[in-house]
Every structure is written in C-alpha cells, then in structure tokens.
C-alpha cells in the first residue's frame, strides 16, 4: 500500500469538513467497543494478564531467531511449505508461482492487515485473479474501493444508510432493507465465492513455534471457510506473530478477544495444522509466508521495538479520542490510530510518516487499553523528538519554539511578554500560533493582571 501519511493534517481536516457522518459513525462504534472492553477487562485480573502477555511477547521478541527456526521446522514436518519474504516483492513471487501452477482464477480472502501492507489484492488482480474479501466489513469497503479504516472493524466509518445505498446500487436491494437482509445478500455472493475459489488467503493472529500451529480468530466463520474450502491456503504471517508454546494461546486468545471487542473469546477460533492428510478434508496445499517488511529493523531499534508486541486488537484505536474524530483513513497507511502513529514511522520512515506521531494529545488512554502494555505515549514522544532532531518540523514551529525558549529562559522577558499579552504587540513569531488558536475559539482573554503581580499584594494584605 502506498503511504499518504504525510497528508494527515489536511486529510483529517477535509474529512471533518466534508464527511461529518464519518465522525458520528466512528465515535459511536468505538465508544461501543470501548464500553465492552472495559466491562470485559473488569471481569478478570487484567493487570496480571497484561503483564504476563507483555512478558511472553518480550521473551519471543528477544529470542526471535530461535522461535522462527523452531516454527519453520514444525511447519515443514506437517507438510506446510514455508517461504520467507522480506517485503511485497518476495510475497508476490510466492503468489505468482501458485497462481500459475494451479491456474488460480478466484481467491477468497480472510481479513488481514499484513496483506494490506503487501498489496496482495492489487497484485492478484493484476494477474487476472478475482479476489473476494470475505469479512463482511472488508467486503463492503472492497465494493467501495476503500482501504480499511480500523484494524478490527474495517468499515467502521460507514453508516447503515451508506451501506443500504451501496447495496441498492450493486444488488438492487430496497433502500430500507434491514441489516439482516443486507448481510443475507452478501452471504449469498460470498458462499458462491467460497465454493468456487481455487485459493484461500489469510493472515494469522498467532503462530505457535512449539507445534507449528496457526491460530486465527474471527466472528463470522469466513476465515474458517477461506482456509479450509479452497484447495490451496496461503497464510501471510508477520515475524512478530510468534508464540512459544501452544499453552500460551490460553492467555492470548481470550486477552485479544477482550481487548478487541470485549468478548470472552471470539466466536470462532481456528487452529490450523497443515494440509489435509489422506481421508481428511481441507486444503491440499498450505503455504506459510513469514514476512519481515521492516520488522527486523524495528526490532533492532532500542527505543521503538516494543511496538512489535502489538496484537492488532484495535483497542487503542477505540480508546483514542483523536482517532474517534476521523477514523483511520486520514492517517494514510495500513495502521491508524495510536498504534499506527508509533508503528508507521518504524515501518515506513519518519519523513514519510512525520505528522502521525503528532496525531495525539498524549492523553494516555491508549496505554490503559493496550493488552500488551505498549508504552504508546512515550513512543510518540520518542518519534517527535527524532522528528525535531531530523529537522522535520515546519518553519513556523521552529521559529515559535525559539521565541518561546527565549522568553521563558528570562524572567525579565517573561514579564515583558506578560505585558505584551495585555496590549503591547506580541513577538511576530508567535502570531501564527495565536491565529490558529483563535480561529475556532473565542479570543484569548488573559486575566486583567498576571498572578506574579498579584502575589505582592497578597503578601502585603496578609501581613507576611
């Protein structure tokens, strides 16, 4: 996916202006998710769970080479074909070979953010393969030609009205059709696709090194169908998705479900163990593509590696009051919200993702929601600091900061500034700041006199 993260400020402003319905839809849905998460967290010793999950992930990440090799061995033993992909090119090669050899015409896809990173859909389409996203939300945005706007709820920005209109235009359903009726129409199309597809594509929530098991969580059953009906299944797995032991799933499956949707467990959990053996049903061919795409570089970053603990649950998006205003599209890359703001600069580059670490008030709600305790606020600060050190800040900001420092370093200048605020002309460098402030708010009205002047009278009056 081509990143447009640098346009975040403009895109966010434009969306708020032009599509106010998005704010309403996203706020409503995220608050709903957030309430459910809080309830689900409160049912369990969540602090203990988060600490344990963090410890397991940190352990895997600091022994990643070992666990990757173990996972590969176990997968091979099960007859799974294992591929290593540094980025989209290698991933596409794997698909190209399969498409050519098996004469693939139709693919069904489970929801996967990694395949968004890799541009799997456009690549398959360029080969003449018809691709069906089979997660209902993902299917909707595929029809609209839009990228996902949320890690878990890709169509979170759409209202029921918009979906009704879309289905009316595409399938001729009545404009007042019930959500159930609309889902029924999608189900019909997708059932046909499941039964006729030659290729199933998925991501993975976890890959267990000990057993070579892929774990996939979902609520619709489409992932199970996508990975079991077609003769070939390809799973794209980010290097950070490893867990050491099968028993770790006992913690990570419910923790992820609680964080993501407030469920105790997702409706479906599929533990996949390789191609069908004789007499079994299932895919003949299973491929696991282990994808780096910037992850080892991030792992080597002593200040930013903790982002790799991420489970892609979306809890931080739901908790984020900044994300809630716009949804994910303005962020301009696969991962949006707080986790996107700290992950994207690592996966892309800071130049490309510059505005994203600033898309936060540092309110800290994301950290409280995160099931693996990624210190998002301090990572945001780290990226901001690096951006400044690299000289990426806009000119007005540099000038304003310089003026600010000068004023605040000197009590005499500060007092002068105090007077300026009450009538004298303000330093030129601070004017753009003032304009940006007053445009949407009333004029700035300082107290008649600053406290540091009032203090002396307080002293006298109180006789001290």
């Amino acid at each position: 996916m081509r990143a447009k993260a640098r346009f975040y400020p403009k895109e966010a402003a434009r969306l708020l202006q032009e599509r106010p319905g998005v704010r309403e839809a996203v706020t409503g849905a995220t608050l709903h998710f957030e309430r459910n998460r809080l309830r689900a967290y409160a049912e369990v010793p969540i602090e203990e769970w988060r600490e344990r999950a963090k410890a397991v992930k940190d352990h895997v990440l600091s022994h990643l080479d070992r666990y990757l090799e173990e996972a590969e061995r176990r997968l091979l033993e099960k007859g799974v074909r294992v591929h290593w992909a540094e980025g989209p090119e290698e991933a596409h090669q794997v698909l190209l070979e399969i498409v050519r050899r098996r004469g693939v015409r139709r693919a069904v896809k489970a929801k996967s953010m990694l395949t968004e990173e890799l541009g799997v859909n456009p690549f398959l389409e360029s080969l003449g393969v018809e691709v069906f996203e089979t997660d209902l939300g993902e299917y909707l945005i595929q029809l609209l030609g839009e990228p996902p706007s949320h890690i878990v709820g890709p169509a979170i920005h759409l209202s029921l009205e918009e979906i009704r209109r879309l289905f009316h235009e595409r399938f001729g359903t009545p404009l007042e059709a019930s959500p159930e009726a609309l889902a029924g129409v999608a189900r019909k199309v997708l059932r046909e696709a499941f039964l006729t597809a030659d290729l199933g594509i998925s991501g993975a929530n976890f890959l267990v090194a000990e057993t070579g098991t892929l774990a996939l969580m979902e609520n619709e059953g489409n992932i199970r169908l996508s990975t079991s009906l077609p003769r070939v299944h390809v799973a794209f797995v980010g290097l950070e998705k490893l867990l050491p032991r099968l028993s770790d799933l006992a913690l990570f499956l419910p923790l992820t479900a609680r964080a993501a949707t407030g469920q105790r467990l997702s409706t479906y959990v599929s533990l996949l163990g390789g191609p069908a053996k004789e007499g079994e049903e299932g895919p003949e061919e299973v491929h696991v593509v282990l994808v780096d795409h910037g992850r080892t570089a991030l792992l080597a970053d002593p200040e930013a590696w903790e982002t790799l603990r991420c489970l892609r649950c979306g809890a931080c998006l739901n908790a984020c009051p900044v994300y809630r205003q716009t949804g994910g599209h303005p962020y301009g890359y696969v991962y949006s919200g707080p986790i996107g703001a700290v992950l994207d600069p690592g996966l892309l580059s800071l130049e490309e993702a510059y505005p994203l670490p600033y898309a936060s008030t540092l309110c800290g709600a994301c950290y409280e929601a995160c099931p693996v305790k990624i210190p998002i606020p301090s990572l945001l600060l780290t990226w901001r600091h690096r951006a400044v050190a690299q000289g990426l800040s806009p000119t007005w900001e540099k000038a304003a900061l310089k003026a600010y420092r000068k004023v605040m370093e000197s009590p005499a200048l500060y007092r002068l500034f105090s007077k300026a605020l009450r009538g004298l002309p303000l330093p030129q460098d601070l004017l753009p700041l003032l304009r940006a402030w007053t445009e949407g708010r009333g004029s700035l009205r300082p107290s008649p006199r600053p406290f540091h002047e009032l203090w002396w009278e307080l002293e006298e009056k109180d006789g001290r």
Partner: protein
Amino acid sequence: MGEMRVALFITCLADQFYAEAGVAAVRLLRALGVEVDFPEGQTCCGQPAFNAGHWEEARTLARRTLRVFQEAEYVVLPSGSCASMLRNHYPELLPGSREALAFSEKVYELSQFLVRVLGVERLGEGLKGVRVAYHHGCHALRELGVREEPLTLLTNAGAEILPWEAAEECCGFGGLFSVKLPEVSLAMADRKLSTLPEAQVLTSTDAGCLLHLSGRMAKRGANLRVAPLATLLWEAYAG
C-alpha cells in the same frame, strides 16, 4: 502543620489566564496553616517544548525550573499536567540527574497535596448545592493518578458532581496539538461540550483544558461559568 512550607509554581498558563487560581491557592494553603513561597524567576516548566519533541529547549527550562525551586520542601501546582511534567518527565528528560529524581518526589498538584500530604478532605461547605461538571485533565488522571481527590474535596463541600459520559475523555487541548491539528482539536472539544451536563460551573485542574473548552464555548455561544479547581476549593473553604 505550622511547620509546613510549600513553594507555589503558578505555571505560565495559570499565571496569564487564570491568575485567580493562584490567589485562591495561596489563600487556601495559608488558611490551612501552610506557609507559601512564590519563588521569583519561575516561568514555564518546558512541557510545550517537551511534548512537541523539542527536548533541547525543554531541557534548558527543566534545568532552570530545578534551580528556581531547589530550596523548596514541597512544590505545589494548580495544574495536573505541569505537575506530571515535573514529577514524571523531568527524570526522563534529564537521565542520570539525581537532582531531577529527588525533586520529582516533592511535586504535587494542589488537590493531591491537600488530600495526600495534608490529609485534608473537608474544606468547608461553601459549595452547597452547586452543580459541577468536572473535567478530568488527562495528565492529572492518567499520569498522576489524581481521580478521587478533587471529587472528594468538591463533594464534601456540598457540590453535586454531575454525571458526564465524557468526563474522563481528553478535551483536545494537548498543547501544540491545539494549533498543529486545530480541526481535530476542536472536534474533540465539541464532543466534550455536546455531552456536557446542565451544570452551573465547569472545572478542572488544568488551565490549558479550561482555556480550550471555554474558548470553544464562546465560539459556540454557550454560556457557563468556567473556573479552575483552585478557585472552587477556596470557595469551598471561604463560602
């Protein structure tokens, strides 16, 4: 308690925009038998620079703040955000500085100081029947862990804290955020204001939040008294 002595750090925003919070804090602390100093030379703690990534500027201001307050036994601020800057972020900004570490333990937001250090939970009954909307400043709430202290002090003075579904949500101020991403910042203020209960006064620990919310209210034509927590706490005491 007569021995107790605190240094007031008014913070630049309160100094300029909510001077009455400083007056109220001084009167209240003195009324409770605490001696109050106001170290000359104090300006800004450096938070705006720190949060925006300009750590060199922030470091300069952190060092001078440490100097200005080096004699203080306690540093009390009518701001949760600046208190957290001093308490939590100075040690990060000045790694290896024992001075910053020792200093951080002396720093308190006003209501936190009253409840946790002075052990005062009842100031008086000056807020009898006053309907209050309380905005939890994010840094007071999530970085300092100050949630109950202000509510206890207000409620014990007779105020009614109104239920507000967005009470713990960020108001959208965020320092430079408010001017770097003004549209998003304002949308966040609108979310707070559109859920605001029918209160007589809106209050919070932080001048930045109040400045932002009251500015937005003025633009939207809403009319509600906005008062810093320190002011209400003095009213709680003095009636």
